[in-house]
C-alpha cells in the first residue's frame, strides 16, 4: 500500500449545500454540509451566549478519493470547499504563493475545512498533497498545474476577500451576480 503511487478517482460523490452561519455576538463563523433541500436562510436561533444566523447557503458537493490501483480510500468529508485568492492583501502568504507560482503556470487554491473544527484540526498537509495530486492527475501537467494549500496561510481571515468555488444564488430567480465573501 505504501508503495502504491496512487491514481485517484472521485468516489461517493454527495451533492448538497454548504451552510454558513455567523454569530453576531462573538463574530464567529460556523459551517456544515447538508443534503437538506431548502435550508431556511436568516434562520436565527440562540445557543448559550451565541446568536446564530444563516448568512450563506451554497450548492456544493462532498467526495472521497479512491485509488484505482490499490483501492485505498481517502475520505474528504472534512473538506468544506476551495477558495480562490483575489489578491486582496499583498503580504498574505497565499497571495505571495500565487504570484510566485503563476510564472510556472501553477494555479493555487486554498482548501478549507469546516468551521470551527478546522481551527483545531486543520486538514493535514498529507491530504492537501493528495488533493493536489488528484487534480494534477486530471490534467496535462505540461500545460499547467494546480496546488492546493491550507487556509492557515491566509494572513487575516476576517479580512480575506477570497471567493469560494461553489454556487450561490442558484435558488434565486435572479441571475447570480458578483457576491462579496463571507468572512
Amino acid at each position, binding site marked *: 500500500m505504501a508503495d502504491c503511487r496512487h491514481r485517484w478517482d472521485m468516489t461517493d460523490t454527495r451533492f448538497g449545500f454548504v451552510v454558513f452561519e455567523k454569530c453576531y455576538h462573538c463574530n464567529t463563523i460556523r459551517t456544515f454540509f447538508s443534503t437538506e433541500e431548502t435550508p431556511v436562510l436568516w434562520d436565527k436561533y440562540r445557543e448559550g451566549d451565541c446568536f446564530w444566523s444563516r448568512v450563506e447557503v451554497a450548492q456544493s458537493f462532498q467526495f472521497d478519493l479512491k485509488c484505482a490501483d490499490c483501492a485505498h480510500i481517502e475520505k474528504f468529508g472534512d473538506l468544506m470547499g476551495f477558495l480562490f485568492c483575489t489578491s486582496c492583501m499583498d503580504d498574505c502568504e497565499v497571495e505571495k504563493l500565487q504570484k510566485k507560482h503563476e510564472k510556472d503556470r501553477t*494555479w493555487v487554491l486554498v482548501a478549507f475545512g469546516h468551521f470551527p473544527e478546522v481551527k483545531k484540526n486543520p486538514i493535514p498537509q498529507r491530504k492537501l498533497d493528495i488533493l493536489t495530486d488528484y487534480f494534477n492527475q486530471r490534467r*496535462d501537467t505540461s*500545460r499547467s498545474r*494546480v496546488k492546493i494549500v491550507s487556509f492557515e496561510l491566509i494572513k487575516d481571515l476576517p479580512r480575506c476577500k477570497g471567493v469560494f*468555488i461553489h454556487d450561490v444564488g442558484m435558488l434565486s430567480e435572479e441571475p447570480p451576480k458578483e457576491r462579496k465573501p463571507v468572512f
Partner: protein
Amino acid sequence: MTTKELIDKLGLEPLSKFEHREVNGVFISDMLSDVMTGAQTGNLWLTIQTQKHIVPAANLVDVAAILVTGGKEVPQDTIDLASRFNIAILSSKLPTFELVGKLYALGLGGK
C-alpha cells in the same frame, strides 16, 4: 478540433487572451459542483454563468475553453481573470440547446 477551428466554424467570439488548444468533448452545466465532479480536461464547457468564479473552476478542471451561451454578457473582470490564467472565454448568441446540434454536427462527442 482546436479552439481556433471551433471559433471559425461556429462564429464564436473570443473574449479573453489565451493560447489555442485541442478540444475533446463537451460539458454542459451552470453548476460549479457538477463541473468539478464531472468535467474532463480539454472539454468545451458551455454555460450561462458569467461570474468570475467560473475561472478558477475552469482552471481546477483544466477545460479547453468556457463557452458562454445565449449572448450573455461577460463582465470585464471575469475576462481579465481568464486572460491572466490563459483560459479561453468564448461567446455565442445561440442558446445552449442549439449549439449542441452544431457541435455534434462538427463531430464533437460528450466528455
